[in-house]
């Protein structure tokens, strides 16, 4: 038994050291260098700065007439609305697809899961948006992000829904609840953990999305955070301190979200993805 305890100890130590070097060091590296002056930061090492230049952050925020703040607003609006819509429509859709086991619902399930397998056709999507007169608007970006994330989110909800007994709906029905009332008052509140999982995973992937805004939101007006930082990358090639300050700034919101929902992520996936 003693040998076993030793092994666990060694496991702990190795795990922590490896995790620190592989995952934590890169973050520390960014943070330390974001506080140096230009010359120090360009040496790209991990020495602590001689003077802490907190004003780097202010410089980055002020850049191009507060461009990053506008970008933040766009990215937050985009993620917020997309995530809300996803929670509402995918919980409804998952409920229907999991409960109704007839031919139509099975076919619709396969139809949606196509989206998980095949890549989206980007340029024709632009064409569709243009025909609808909504190309280059935040509104259309929200809908495109929703459409691209529907399959994964539906998969999560179907998996979770299979753990909720359908007797609940039957008794609600006997008590005289209609279909809408049953879902919104009885079922929807029971989906809390999977709501949390889908909120965090989708918020992170939509906030961090670079590709789709690159195609669907070109131009300065609706610029998103990832676009901004990509452009900074070209401009600040020789000022790593500012570049890292930018990186830290845009990573912060997701970090906060993660700290709030941390526990729910594994919980939701345990219940969702695997059984599905």
């Amino acid at each position, binding site marked *: 038994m003693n040998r076993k305890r030793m092994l*666990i100890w060694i*496991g*702990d130590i190795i*795990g*922590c050291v490896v*995790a620190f070097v592989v*995952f*934590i060091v890169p973050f520390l*590296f960014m943070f330390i260098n974001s506080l140096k002056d230009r010359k120090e930061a*360009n*040496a*790209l*090492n991990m020495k602590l700065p001689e003077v802490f230049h907190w004003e780097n952050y202010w410089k980055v925020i002020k850049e191009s007439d507060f461009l990053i703040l506008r970008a933040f607003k766009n990215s937050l609006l985009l993620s917020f609305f997309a995530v809300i819509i996803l929670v509402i*429509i995918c919980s*409804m*859709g998952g*409920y*229907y*697809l999991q*409960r*109704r086991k*007839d031919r139509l*619902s099975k076919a*619709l399930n396969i*139809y*949606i899961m196509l989206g*998980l*397998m*095949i*890549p989206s*056709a980007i*340029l*024709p999507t632009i*064409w*569709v948006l243009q025909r609808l007169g909504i190309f280059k608007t935040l509104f259309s970006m929200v*809908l*495109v992000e*929703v459409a*691209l994330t*529907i399959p994964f989110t539906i998969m999560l909800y179907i998996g979770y829904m299979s753990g909720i007994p359908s007797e609940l709906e039957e008794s609600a029905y006997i008590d005289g609840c209609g*279909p809408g009332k*049953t879902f919104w008052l009885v079922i929807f509140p029971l989906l809390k953990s999977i709501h949390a999982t889908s909120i965090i*995973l989708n918020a*992170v992937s939509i*906030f*961090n999305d670079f*590709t789709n805004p*690159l195609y669907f939101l070109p131009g300065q007006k609706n610029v998103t*955070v990832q676009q901004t*930082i990509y452009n900074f*990358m070209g401009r600040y090639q020789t000022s790593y301190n500012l570049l890292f300050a930018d*990186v830290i700034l845009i*990573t912060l919101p997701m*970090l906060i979200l*993660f700290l709030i929902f*941390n526990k729910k*992520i594994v919980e939701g996936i345990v219940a969702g*993805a*695997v*059984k599905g």
Partner: protein
Amino acid sequence: MNKSKMYHNGFVFPVILIFSIFFIIPMVISFYFSLTVWNLDSVRFIGLDNFKTLLHSGPLITGFKNTFIYIIFGSGGVTVISFMIAVFLTSRIRTKNLLRSVVFFPNLVSSVAVGITFIALMHPSKGMINALIKALGGSSISFLGDPKIAIFSTIAVMLWKGFSIATVIYIAGITSIDPGYFEAAAIDGAHGWKKLRYITIPLTKDSINTVLMLSVIGSFRNFDLIWALTGGGPGYATDNVASSIYKQYTLGFYGLSTAGNVILLITTALLIFPLQRLLRGKGDE
């Protein structure tokens, strides 16, 4: 209770509507546009010329070759290594909750930010990885500048970012195994490798399938990270199909770009559907 009344078609309608307009319809139209020279204002039908051009274009063929390298080493690596991480993080070590959060960390950082960080860490002369190699007596490596190495450096960064979700899915799978199996195995004298081989691996088959599928599909679609890290370069050394499609688009070749997309779609389907059938089929045994 009437099922079709209780679970009214209206519940699924919004999902189907949005998904159809912004995913399925563009996909269907793409087959037509791939046969044309077009931009957002005009269309001219040219038959299969785009496909002929693409099949003779060096960059796209490189893109295809690279996509398969990404799948074999990237998706393969994620599937196998994440599994080992998950086994480690479901063992009896005390710091597992902390370490689980740490492994998930990179998922929060956008590909662009990861790209910037690793460009700095992999800098050919000053980067910390090379500093370490030099301290150990080696000579520095141009991780992202050498066309032979660049794709593997890119894959390494993909793995770094990709472990997170895969590990969480595995942890979910492993923790949902009934502990009774392990107890029974322990009584029969199975330990370590045997426990892994005869209990953990077979009983997490669903998770392994999920991770493998998601990461193969991810390899096909991956664009962000490649673009931020190398821009597809040096030359076309790290381009995959998705990034060569983007290059065609920025050059204004909408028809070619769409045709590239159609080829990508067909290859994905040709690879994914049989793969899924294979994995599902094995799961039934």
